């Protein structure tokens, strides 16, 4: 490697590419590409119709432009919408059939796919560009009646569940990127937890963009039937490329009566280099419906990657007594931009929501919290508590808080607090005096600042996330 590349690799250790032969759809966005994807996934007719409906609606939609981070016009005709390693075009039946190169790739990312090297009690679905390459622990989960598989497989094997719930939380015409995803989504995970079952292990999906000029459009659907519980985690990485790559995922969660879904994200897509060149556009629609009474959906996100992050994991609190939570850390450094937050829509009685957001901005970055708390007139006794804190490091970055609070119910109670501050010189001096260097001190203080959110992550990932928080800010304090 040349010196420059070595330097770059230090900045982002997941920046390597895997040299693997792949099959792609023809470049561009048109009906044929939609048909191509549906066909290669061996989808039934109804699914193709669903996609085509989305595609026809897309023509009437425009990209939204209200967000803070502006980005150069995306040429949707200059992208590949499907790319898959040749070796997995026919989904491998077992791990033994998975291309060793792919197993090696995930190993380098720290995700063992061989079951003997169990990542302590976590089942993994690995998605590489447009396809799922392996799902671990399937056997054990099946015994409990849990379905955890690539969504393309679920479309073929569990059509009733998919038909009933796909698009039921994010309508296909919701907005431009959600509709685009509905037309051209390639793979992602499907989870169904049957009535009364507590999923015995963490379920996890690792997303990897490898191919160049390719957009990743994954779709995840999680259904927690009555009285069930599941904790799900997603992680994402991508190679370092000078071009910007588009990632427009849709994630839908449905929690029925007394069910709980905990969804955690550690997002570490390639953020671009120090000068803001390259990096992923992470335009993601995540929405959960607490459809049943006493149901609960909890989002936790640690957003450290991507050139632009633009997402609002939301909860529609339909069921009486349902609970929505949003815990977020968003770190932006160098030229990264993030516009993220949540929407809590209170429809049912006695619904509760809690929002804890920690934004950290360094370098030339811009970090925005944008959130909506909406209490409708039927949501008697609804409660919301919101705390948004921002930390600024340096004088070239920005931190913004834009909450929308709409209340139409006289029995509701909403509390919102926000602060903006910086790490004080006194705090740094105190840590220095106890032998910590500047970077250790910053990492310690920032981790303290983020503690409430880090606590929400499953153990194994909390440790990873803490390290990531430190690494993301390296070099930001002189």
């Amino acid at each position, binding site marked *: 490697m040349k010196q420059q590349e070595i330097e770059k690799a230090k900045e982002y250790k997941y920046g390597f590419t895997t040299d693997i032969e792949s099959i792609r759809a023809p470049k561009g966005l048109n009906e044929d590409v939609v048909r191509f994807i549906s066909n290669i996934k061996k989808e039934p007719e109804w699914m193709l119709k669903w996609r085509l409906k989305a595609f026809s609606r897309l023509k009437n939609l425009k990209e939204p432009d209200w967000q803070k981070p502006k980005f150069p016009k995306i040429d949707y005709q200059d992208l590949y919408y499907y790319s898959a390693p040749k070796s997995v075009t026919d989904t491998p039946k077992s791990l033994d059939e998975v291309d060793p190169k792919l197993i090696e790739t995930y190993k380098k990312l720290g995700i063992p796919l061989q079951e003997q090297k169990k990542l302590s009690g976590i089942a993994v679905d690995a998605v590489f560009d447009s396809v799922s390459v392996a799902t671990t622990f399937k056997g054990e989960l099946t015994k409990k009646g849990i379905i955890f598989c690539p969504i393309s497989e679920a479309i073929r094997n569990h059509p009733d569940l998919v038909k009933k719930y796909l698009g039921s939380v994010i309508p296909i015409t919701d907005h431009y990127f959600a509709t685009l995803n509905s037309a051209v989504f390639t793979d992602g995970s499907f989870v169904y937890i049957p009535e009364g079952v507590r999923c015995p292990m963490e379920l996890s999906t690792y997303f990897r963009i490898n191919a160049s000029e390719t957009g990743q459009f994954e779709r995840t659907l999680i259904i927690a039937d009555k009285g069930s519980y599941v904790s799900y985690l997603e992680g994402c990485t991508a190679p370092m490329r000078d071009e910007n790559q588009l990632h427009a995922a849709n994630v839908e969660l449905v929690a029925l009566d007394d069910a709980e879904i905990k969804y955690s994200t550690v997002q570490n897509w390639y953020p671009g280099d120090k000068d803001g060149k390259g990096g992923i556009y992470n335009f993601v629609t995540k929405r959960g419906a607490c459809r049943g009474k006493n149901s609960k959906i909890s989002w936790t996100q640690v957003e450290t990657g991507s050139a632009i992050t633009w997402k609002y994991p939301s909860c529609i609190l339909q069921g009486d007594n349902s609970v929505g939570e949003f815990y977020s850390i968003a770190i932006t450094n160098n030229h990264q931009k993030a516009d993220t937050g949540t929407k809590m829509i209170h429809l049912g009685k006695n619904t509760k929501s809690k929002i804890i957001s920690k934004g950290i901005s360094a370098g030339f970055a811009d970090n925005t919290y944008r959130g909506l708390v909406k209490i409708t007139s039927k949501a008697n006794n609804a409660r919301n508590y919101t705390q948004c804190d921002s930390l*600024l*490091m340096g004088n070239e970055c920005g931190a*913004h808080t*834009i909450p929308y609070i*709409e209340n139409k119910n006289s029995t509701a109670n909403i509390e919102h607090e*926000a602060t903006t*501050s*910086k790490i004080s010189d006194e705090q740094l001096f105190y840590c220095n005096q106890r032998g910590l260097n500047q970077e250790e001190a910053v990492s310690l203080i920032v981790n303290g600042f983020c503690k409430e959110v880090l606590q929400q992550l499953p153990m194994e990932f909390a440790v990873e996330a803490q390290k990531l928080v430190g690494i993301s800010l390296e070099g930001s304090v002189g």
Partner: protein
Amino acid sequence: MNLKFEEFQKSNLGLKELDNIRIKSFKKFEIQGFPTKKQEHWKYTDLKNIITNNFQNLQIFNGSKNLVYNNKLIIKNFEHNKIILLNGSFIESSFIYEDEKKIIIKSLKSILENKNDFNKIKEYFDDDQNSMLSLNHALTNDGVVLDIENNYSFNKPLVVYNFFDKTAENKIINNKIFISLGDKSNLCMIDFYRCENNIKYFNNTIHNYTIKKNATLKKYNINDSLDNSYNYNSVKIKSYSNSVFENFLLSLGPNLIKNEIHCNLLENYSSCFINGIMLLDGSQHHELKTNVNHKYENCKSSQLIKSVLLDKSNGTYQGKIYVDKKAQKTNGYQLSKALILSENSAFNSKPELEIYADDVKCSHGSTTGNIDENSIFYLMSRGLTKDQANKMIVEGFLNEVIETITDPNVKILISSLFNERINKVNV
């Protein structure tokens, strides 16, 4: 809606430059129309909708011959200076408590007729942030320009009376007010509104204030009278070093108010305080939108807004603190508290921070909810009826903001107007 601009334009021909501004601005307005909720800043006040629903035939107000106002509307038992505006036009002024040599007052009409004078204020006809401003530039033909010399402190408050009579019925009235305070000068000013016969009209007004070094402007918006008026009021302030701008808003009366305050803290140690209360019932719709722009170091701003919503009323607070990269050591604070006391009322708030400097202390808070049951229980256990208890709590809740008024005489005046209003309310 069919505003007969050409008719207005022909009867108001004057300076060529002004004529051009009018034509250009009206075109801008025609393209955009009245603001709708699709525009971010009008998200909670869909003006187009409100106008369509309440005015069958809104027309441009084009002056009237009547120069007589109703004397009985002047505030009694309160020593003050006066500026009288009738239907937006300047009628008269009196500064009997002041050294009149230190004060220059002119009608905007006279300024618009004089090329030199007009050139000095021309820049204020450029702002096209929204279509209501464009409409105002196109249709303004009167108002006030007030200059206060350096080192002059007013002895008594100045009340700017905004009277409206029958000739304004179903009209849209546009005017502008300019106030400039020289170095180390002080003014306490009350913006006071009254109309006759409960007529329905739309008042679209723009104020521009300049507060020079070490000067203090205290401004009180009194919108207390229950009337049928619709109001959009946009205020822009330029604050220079060490200056103070204090604004209190009593938002109780009219059908519709949207107050916008854009305060620019341009130099060291300038400060801005915006406090206010809303007490709404019926189908009143009030909004306060603030934009405090910290453009320089060491400036301070603070906002406290309390609202009480009854019946089918709708209240909104959109507050924004902007901190420029240069504005280190900024101290910015916002707090909005609202009580929603009826099933059909609504309150929206959007307290916003946009910050580009790192050494700042900025925070905001917002709460909306109902009266705490425990407090009511406590008062009732001491023998109050539920209604008394409610009223007492609402009064206390809002009084806390009135207590922040720094001018003692104005505080007494506002307290009494507030009490009058709260006694008409069914909490």
